[in-house]
């Protein structure tokens, strides 16, 4: 297990290196001269040259890349071209809402999807099953920002149960904060709910055809115990897999969902950075999100063992 963990950790290195090269090359290709931008409008060519030398922009590509990687590993992602603030500080300021939203989305999605998938499997081919499957296909196809507007309109504008837009930080009270994130989490989680519902149902149906389930049934175990005690356990591995794959959807969805609900998170930071052509911010955010994605998938791989002792490495 330890050997596998180490090997798996090593395997993420080339991937992370690729992402780093891509992200760095991106800024290198970006139009505009960062030195000239930082120097301001009435800078002399000497000023610009000085800044370029301080930033190391006059060095060859590999040297600059090495320098940049060194800084990144020390938590220095450069400066925003727009505010002049360190990118890492700006990202840290915005990380709380995004992270809370993602965790909440995961929890809500799993809490909704597993009962729905189980119900569908239990009532296989009855109306409950058909209804849930049609619903799953439907919410899988409706984009999360459309779901977002629909929820904001219904539960925000009409019923007034939740705020239509905006975000209350933790300092404004934990419950109030989470309250503002319910609708965004539901919107962001819609695709997730569809995926997890389908995989839960499919796994349960497959497991129910196994020999040991027939044996359990033969010795008189009732349907409910069968489903919850014997079958549902087996659904853990595929569900965890879907959660891992879905993190990419979650990250992409965050950028859009935060725009719909005006949440000042990382997604908004990226969107604002696009409009301002603030490349270091985009660079930092892509790096951070990709790193998160790689780590989540690493954890998912390691979790297989925890959920299914039969898995051998």
């Amino acid at each position, binding site marked *: 297990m330890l050997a596998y963990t180490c090997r798996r950790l090593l395997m993420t290195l080339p991937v992370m290196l690729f992402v780093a090269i891509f992200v760095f090359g991106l800024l290198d290709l970006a139009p505009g001269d960062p030195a000239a931008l930082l120097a301001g409008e009435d800078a002399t060519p000497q000023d610009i040259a000085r800044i370029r030398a301080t930033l190391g922009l006059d060095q060859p590509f590999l040297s600059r890349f090495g320098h940049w990687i060194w800084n990144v590993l020390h938590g220095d992602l450069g400066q925003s071209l727009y505010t002049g603030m360190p990118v890492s500080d700006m990202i840290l300021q915005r990380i709380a809402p995004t992270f809370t939203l993602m965790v909440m989305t995961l929890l809500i999605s799993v809490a909704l999807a597993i009962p729905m998938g189980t119900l569908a499997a239990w009532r296989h081919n009855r109306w409950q099953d058909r209804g849930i499957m049609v619903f799953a296909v439907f919410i899988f196809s409706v*984009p999360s920002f459309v779901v977002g507007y629909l929820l904001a309109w219904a539960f925000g504008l009409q019923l007034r149960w939740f705020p239509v837009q905006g975000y209350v930080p933790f300092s404004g009270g934990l419950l109030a904060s989470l309250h503002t994130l319910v609708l965004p989490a539901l919107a962001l989680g819609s695709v997730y709910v569809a995926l997890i519902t389908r995989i839960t149902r499919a796994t349960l149906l497959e497991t129910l055809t196994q020999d040991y389930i027939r044996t359990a049934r033969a010795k008189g175990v009732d349907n409910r115990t069968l489903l919850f005690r014997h079958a549902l356990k087996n659904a853990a591995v595929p569900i965890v897999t879907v959660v891992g794959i879905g993190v990419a959807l979650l990250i*992409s969805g965050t950028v859009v969902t935060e725009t719909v609900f005006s949440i000042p998170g990382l997604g908004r930071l990226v969107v604002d950075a696009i409009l301002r052509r603030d490349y270091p911010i985009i660079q930092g955010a892509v790096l951070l999100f990709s790193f998160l994605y*790689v780590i989540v998938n690493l954890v998912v791989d390691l979790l297989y063992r925890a959920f299914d002792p039969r898995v051998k490495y």
Partner: protein
Amino acid sequence: MKNFLALLKSQPAMLVGFVLLAALVAIAVFAPWLGTVDPTALSPVNRTKPPGAQFWFGTDLLGRDVYSRVVYGARVSLIVGFSVAVLSTLIGVVIGLAAGFVRWVDAVVMRIMDGFMSIPTILLAIALIAVASASMKNVIIAITVAEVPRVVRLVRGLVLTLREQPYVEAALAAGAGKLRIVARHIFPNTIAALTVQATYICGVAILAEASLSFIGAGVPPSVPSWGNIMAEGRALWQIRPYLIAFPAVFLSVTILAINMLGDGLRDAVDPRMAKRAD
């Protein structure tokens, strides 16, 4: 063709998806003759008119006819969807076949693909578009770059199983060259799975374009697309929900239709999958 019609008949959901998609293609193609006006024509007198007899879907902040914009917006979505599906499949097949058959290519290519796949689609597209510029061509390129690794993985996986098949061994024994084996025995067997994959990619690309345009990193505002119509409606949506609702419905129905078509194709291609997903 006959097979396809029989397939549509046997799968009602797929038929619905196909008919909806055909209708959308017709809307996109015949946009100028569907009672539309110039989708970019400003009319300050008619700003934010609610839907009615003159403006079926109402007008936006600048007095443009939302119905015309939504109808013309179908063109952007479908062009992006189909282009990305075709391009990423073609590029992915070539790379995937090479990776599946040549060992050293495999090692290099798959690490690069892993790298690309560890950057979420929208972020990869945002990064590429931020460096280039917001245009339909760049949106297509950016989404294609994000989707190619998925096709490569699929093709490579198929090649690795197919090359162990007895008939490939037989062809090798009979003295067939590598290229001939790939062209005659391997590639034809990947087409079914690729068709399914391409259908899903088409849906993913349409969603990605809409998302990108919605956050301002997609098709430029001068070209109406469902994503940027919604982006422009954002400021007013609480009092004028139709500004968001009409493009949202068209977008959702399009993706739903494509997914229904894809599910039907998948079930037809691989009955085992049908049983599992059903």
